[in-house]
């Protein structure tokens, strides 16, 4: 499946780009993260502490064990600091 990946705040800075499109067979967000971490060191660094990250699937906050079936957009970012 084809996924649009979006990165925000320091995740974007560590990875070095705001978005990219990937082909993957990952079943869950955790599987996708493992796949990305194997790609390059910058991904490994960005995803080294999942507790400090949040994920949104098609713009809804979600969990790392959520399935990716039917999802088009996955966003990774640190805990939000609005207001």
């Amino acid at each position, binding site marked *: 499946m084809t996924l649009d990946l979006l990165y925000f705040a320091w995740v974007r800075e560590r990875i070095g780009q705001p978005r990219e499109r990937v082909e993957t067979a990952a079943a869950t967000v955790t599987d996708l993260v493992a796949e990305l971490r194997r790609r390059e060191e910058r991904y490994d660094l960005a995803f080294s502490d999942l507790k400090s990250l949040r994920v949104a699937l098609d713009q809804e906050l979600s969990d790392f064990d959520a399935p990716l079936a039917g999802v088009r957009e996955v966003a990774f970012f*640190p805990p*939000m600091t*609005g207001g």
Partner: protein
Amino acid sequence: MRVSVQAEDFDLSGALDGFGTAPGTGASVTFTGLVRDDGGDLLHMEIEHYPGMCEAAIAKIGEEAMARWSLTDCLVIHRHGRLRPGDRIMMVATAARHRAEAFAAAEFLMDYLKSRAPFWKKEVTRNGADWVAAKETDENALKRW
């Protein structure tokens, strides 16, 4: 209900024009957040947001507030981009039959916007730039609702 995520500044009288005029409204509460310079060396703040998800997440929080406190109206404006100390960063307004509901709903909106709306703040000071970390107290603030 009105939600606006924008780069432009806003003024309160313009934002509140026509707000809280629905029948049955007896109280209106407004809150404005400003960029604060705690260390005295803040040059500016960069506010990053997730376009699309931002508006949807705020609308969802607003709808919940409307339902929980039977609000007659609700308004959220949140800016993004480069802001300097003293600049307006966001505002919420609530309208209800009575003040208790209007105050409670405004606090609920603020607590949820802080940690559930996809914004991130980066402080740029004379000594460098750093992302503002989420506070545990902000997450704990959600538990009271």
